[in-house]
């Protein structure tokens, strides 16, 4: 393809970056060009991005212009978005979620004690993603967390009873104490 004039290239970049439609007036302000020149640039782009030519189209929507994917590509897009994402949980998130899943309801200070580092950002993300939720307050006033029905769905579990038996990963299975107590002890040993 041939080289485009600078204004056409700039308008193209702005349309690409913006998730909302842009009016010729907004484009003129941003490019510091006249509105007539912007309309001419949009005409060049409309031809480039005419339906059927490429995977992206230029569309006029509610008085503004926007780039959008061609509807023909929707099946592939659906497969792309529905693929199980490789790195869904960070180690901090996995640890925080595991603590909530096995010990619920559990307060944030306790999670922090077990992890040895603050769990604030991890628990905020998990709340955000609907994997955990608040479950009242402890006797000391700290917010308690539990997992959500959404958590069970995403992990393919019918109920919490189906959580994997941790014996397989237990480094010292001979220990008799309760899981909560053992996790707290190990966490405090790590933090000290």
């Amino acid at each position, binding site marked *: 393809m041939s080289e485009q004039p600078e204004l056409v290239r700039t308008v193209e*970049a702005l349309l*690409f*970056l913006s*998730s909302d439609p842009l009016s010729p007036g907004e484009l003129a302000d941003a490019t510091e060009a006249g509105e007539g020149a912007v309309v001419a640039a949009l005409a060049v782009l409309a031809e480039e991005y005419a339906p059927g030519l490429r995977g992206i189209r230029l569309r006029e929507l509610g008085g503004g212009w926007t780039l*959008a*994917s061609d509807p023909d590509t*929707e099946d592939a*897009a*659906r497969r792309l*978005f*529905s693929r*199980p*994402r490789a790195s*869904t*949980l960070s*180690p901090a998130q*996995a*640890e925080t*979620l*595991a*603590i909530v*899943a*096995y010990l619920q309801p559990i307060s944030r200070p306790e999670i922090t004690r*077990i*992890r040895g580092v603050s769990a604030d950002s991890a628990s905020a993300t998990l709340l955000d993603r609907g994997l955990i939720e608040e479950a009242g307050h402890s006797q000391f006033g700290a917010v308690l967390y539990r997992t959500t029905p959404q958590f069970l*769905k*995403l*992990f*393919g*579990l019918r109920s919490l009873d*189906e*959580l*994997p*038996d*941790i014996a*397989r*990963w*237990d*480094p*010292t299975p001979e220990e008799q104490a309760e*899981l909560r107590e*053992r*996790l707290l*002890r*190990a*966490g405090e*040993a*790590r933090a000290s």
Partner: protein
Amino acid sequence: MTAVALANLELDLDVFSGPFDLLLTLVLREEVDLLELQLAEVVLAYLDHLEQRGELDLETATEFIVLVAALLELKSRLMLSSEEQELLDIEPEQAAEELLARMLDARRFRAAAAHLGELLDAEHGVRFRIAPPPPNLRRAIVHAADGSHDPQVLGEAIGRMLLMPPAISVRHISTLRITVAERLSHLRELLRRGSFSFDEAVRGADRMTVAVTLFALLELYKRGEAEWEQQESFGEIAIHGRAHEAPAEVLAG
């Protein structure tokens, strides 16, 4: 081994006068004896320098701290006699290698940091599209994600957190033959006779005894039994009893 950012730091010390980076070079060339150099003076000069400039340049401050810490460590090792070095298992070669490694590391990663800065600058003006997926695709995302997470990761995470950290080995620390209680009664004995200097209290003692005595002195200070003063760094430490009360007799037992 020049420290470009510190080139402006001018020093006027007992054994040396000139810029800091020159001092560093001279120390490394043995033209200035590290044992005669009072590092406290260097730090004070740096603080003056900061005050005059009225701003804290983090990069320079970092560099300064790394270099002074390295010098301090080397100097403290130089101050040990050779048999005591054996005790601590530190060879002069090792000290020199460590200082060299520390300086090379600091220099390497500062250069690497500058390189990353250049890379980031080269990307200036490159933007990426950040837009939510179109509405017709959003439903697909949530729907298909069911069962997409493996519950095994939760078990693994718990296993990781059940792991107790290994106990810290203390085998390399030699057994204390001098006890704080012994040195406490020694200091109290001296206090009963009046004021004395720390040097007097540890005259002829070995290094471990000196350290334990200092610890005992801190304990006396904490209990309000003694006070001490030092007029200048590396000067004599004078120790006095607390005039207004005399608990020493009571606590000594």
